[in-house]
């Protein structure tokens, strides 16, 4: 249950997700995938985890969803707490309905037991023993919410990359988790699909769900995020609001993609051709900055 209001980040609240001095190394590796991560993600917030390939984004997602340490063994130090409880003290069963994870490759997340998308959505609920009537209702709601009613009777393995991405997200949402962890959720989508998923994530966040998105291209989600966490070599190098994180990303080399338009704005700002104190994170803000500069 969500106890906190969105954007009430300054208030002293019990953390929804709290990584305390958390380090993790995969078996048979010498360098840590995550290095002394200290991060509090309040309930109901929208956090982007950015970084280049191999920076530790996926390991971060696995840590929050409980796959580390329940599935991926290895050496870990520190703790990961969900709603104040150390996840090493709970089972994957307890975490299944609480934290929903969407994997980087959506094709790997299809159960392959389902002959239709409807059955794919039911898969985890069946494993949790949820009643048939509840399943039918939730599936119908989720299909509508994700805009994939037309795919309901299709074979999941016959879908395109973008459609599979939507189905996998729906199969997680149908469990109504409090925390949603998404690893590169927009990577396989066309512009329309991206917009659909972004709007859906914003809606879910407004409803109080905690959203954690790992991405190499955070710019398109800056406008919905509360915080941007930048990882380099498994360590946090930046944990700030999107605007301030963007300024840092423009100056430091972190391997994170920053759109050319934002680089141009930064350049224009330096040369006094764009008005605004903070970095813009939407096209409207960019246009407003140029308009103001033109008027002055």
């Amino acid at each position: 249950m969500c106890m906190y209001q969105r954007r009430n980040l300054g208030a002293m609240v019990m953390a929804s997700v709290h990584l305390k001095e958390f380090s993790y190394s995969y078996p048979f590796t010498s360098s840590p995938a995550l290095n002394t991560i200290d991060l509090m993600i309040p309930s109901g917030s929208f956090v982007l985890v950015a970084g280049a390939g191999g920076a530790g984004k996926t390991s971060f997602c696995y840590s929050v969803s409980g796959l580390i340490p329940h599935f991926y063994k290895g050496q870990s130090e520190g703790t990961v707490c969900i709603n104040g409880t150390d996840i090493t003290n709970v089972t994957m069963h307890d975490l299944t309905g609480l934290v929903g994870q969407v994997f980087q490759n959506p094709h790997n997340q299809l159960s392959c037991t389902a002959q239709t998308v409807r059955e794919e959505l039911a898969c985890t609920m069946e494993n949790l023993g949820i009643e048939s009537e509840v399943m039918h209702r939730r599936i119908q709601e989720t299909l509508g919410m994700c805009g994939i009613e037309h795919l309901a009777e299709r074979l999941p393995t016959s879908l395109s990359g973008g459609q599979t991405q939507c189905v996998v997200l729906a199969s997680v949402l149908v469990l109504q988790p409090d925390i949603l962890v998404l690893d590169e959720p927009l990577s396989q989508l066309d512009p329309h699909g991206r917009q659909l998923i972004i709007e859906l994530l914003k809606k879910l966040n407004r409803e109080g769900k905690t959203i954690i998105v790992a991405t190499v291209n955070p710019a398109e989600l800056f406008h919905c995020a509360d915080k941007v966490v930048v990882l380099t070599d498994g360590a946090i190098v930046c944990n700030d609001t999107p605007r301030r994180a963007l300024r840092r990303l423009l100056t430091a080399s972190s391997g994170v993609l920053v759109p050319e338009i934002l680089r141009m704005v930064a350049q224009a700002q330096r040369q006094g051709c764009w008005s605004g104190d903070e970095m813009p994170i939407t096209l409207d803000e960019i246009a407003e900055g140029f308009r103001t500069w033109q008027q002055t």
Partner: protein
Amino acid sequence: MLYSTGSTETEESLLYRLCPVTKLFSAVVIILSAFLLPGSPNGGVIIIILLLPLLYKAGILIKYLKTLTVFLLSFVIFILLIYTFFLPVEATDSVKLLTITVNVEGANRAFFIIQRVAVLMATLLLFSMTTSPQRLVKDLYSRNCHPTICYIILSSYGLIPMMRDRAQAIQQSQKARGLEIEGSLAQRIRSLLPLITPLVISVFSNVEERAAALEVKGFRLSGPKSSLNPIVEMRWEGLLRLLCVCISAGILGQWLWRQYI
């Protein structure tokens, strides 16, 4: 995939509607009877022949026979040639055809082996053509089969399309890098290593993520399960399965008796 459907008639036919586990039990009985009963495996052959009208009714008889022929043809020719012409032969067991000596005893043995293998192949093909892997896993899972077994079936099934796509992508990218994958046999053999190595590595990394995804989906959870569309079995299927178990036990019993007593 061998599993083939498409028309409503096919999906509504008896062979498709039978529970996958019932079909599995029946397949085991047919195969055991072909391999463990004394004498020729005529019983298995007769059962397969009796099932052909059902395949015809389901609209897949021609496809079934074609596929079976493709699978068996090279094996039949190979076994017949080896046993009939190339095995040492007693003078009394041979027939001279022009300049070639035909081993009659060998030919009989070849027919015996071919019959057994044909029953095995025909049964497995019948099972795989009429049973979707998804339905099989669902049925096994709903009967509290160990998740590891379900997982092995699921992973293998999920890997096939993934490997096919991956192999295609690797082939195209290696071609773009200038790898000669067409031409003489030697050239093709040389190109195998750069094609197979990335395929195997990528499959292993995907298997791990697939396993993690199944973990998140609660496949290893104990406790009561539910089903959105439970597999409905016909009233007499339980009896048929019981009969299969009894016959299998009988066949195994007589085989052990003949072997050790």
